[in-house]
């Protein structure tokens, strides 16, 4: 065991997700070798993320102000709302440049086996938004896994009574993949969701 600050840094880094003791040690010694200004910049960035980043009051994306950049952007289409599990999903959709509407971040997905139900998600906040905003279409963009499907099914049931167009993002074959290696569930869905060309 090392002594003093180097051991403290190893222990703190080792608490991060996906960082084992060996990786923590490697990063700690890398930090020891970098310029002081670089280390200071990293330390400042970590403190700033805790001090300045919060959740958007409207969509619950990460934001620096009361509302996030997307909610403040008047060019975004207010009639279409895309519901995602986490801010990371929102960023993945933004990278596609295909969606010009606004978002709502649930803060997770329904997972009965982990005791996470609709009450633990920001579903009430979504319903409140639908009452206040002129939304005409909801896009359910949950991951195609068991938690995402349970969440999408719950929301689809809940939203059914409202006068809205509710759609779910398609699931199917990945671009660049080989058809013969696709599993039956994925290929079956790709087939069921085929589009006319």
């Amino acid at each position: 065991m090392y002594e003093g600050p180097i051991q403290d840094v190893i222990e703190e880094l080792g608490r991060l997700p996906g960082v084992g003791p060996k990786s923590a040690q490697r990063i700690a010694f890398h930090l020891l070798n970098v310029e002081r200004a670089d280390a200071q910049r990293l330390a400042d960035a970590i403190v700033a993320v805790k001090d300045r980043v919060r959740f958007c009051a409207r969509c619950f994306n990460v934001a620096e102000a009361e509302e996030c950049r997307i909610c403040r952007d008047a060019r975004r289409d207010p009639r279409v709302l895309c519901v995602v599990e986490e801010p990371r999903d929102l960023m993945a959709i933004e990278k596609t440049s295909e969606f010009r509407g606004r978002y709502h971040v649930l803060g997770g997905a329904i997972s009965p086996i982990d005791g996470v139900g609709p009450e633990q998600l920001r579903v009430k906040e979504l319903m409140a938004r639908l009452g206040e905003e002129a939304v005409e279409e909801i896009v359910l963009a949950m991951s195609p896994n068991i938690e995402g499907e349970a969440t999408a099914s719950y929301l689809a049931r809940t939203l059914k009574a409202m006068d809205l167009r509710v759609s779910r993002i398609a699931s199917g074959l990945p671009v660049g993949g080989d058809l013969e290696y696709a599993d039956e569930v994925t290929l079956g869905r790709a087939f069921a969701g085929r589009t006319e060309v």
Partner: protein
Amino acid sequence: MALYREQGIVLRTTKLGETDRILNVLTQGRGKVRAVAKGVRKPGSRFGGRLEPFGHVDLQLYEGRRGLDIVNQAELITPFDAVRGDWVLSACGSTMVEAADLLAQEHERTTSLFLLLLDGLRQLATVPAQPSVVLDAYLLRLASVAGYHPSLDACAGCGRAGRHEVFHLELGGALCAACAPVGSQPLAEGVLDALAALREADWGLDAAVAPAARRLAGSLVASYLSHHLGRPLAAWELVPR
């Protein structure tokens, strides 16, 4: 590393690193097996879609170290897509796999548990009108398979035949007036009959069983199993009734 092949049902999955998952699989011949499925969270994974919870799969695995095997190949026998795609069925199915996960022992063959879970999921996949009744029937059968068969037709204390109206979780069933601890509250009317009907019926309940008695019987089954498992079933609480 030895290679083996097993049929199994995926009970639950846990994320591992960037793209892997750890699976708990209830196999037909080796009891519960914990295995790593590498790269299954990547969109282009060869068998990611085959290894979701509830999936009945044919697996080829390597025996790994520290009790973690490695999935080498996976073929899907039944995906139980209908169960995954509906929130109520998914909550019922999650309770089923959670209970099986708690009961099954690693590398200890329990074919009856495997077949019961498979049967339960098959019943849910038929999209029954009352999925929670299928779940209650499954949990009652599971208690019996696990060796906690509740006594409903005779006193669990002295064995005296008859329908007794006090139910004792620890003693394993209904108790007669002489065996019941002082101050025991009798069950509401019709609950024991609903329990007996759940045990005997083919994964359903007659419409004649009052909804209140059915709900109470369901709660009693869950409490009974949770008591013997030593912890509550998290998913059961979220099943809409």
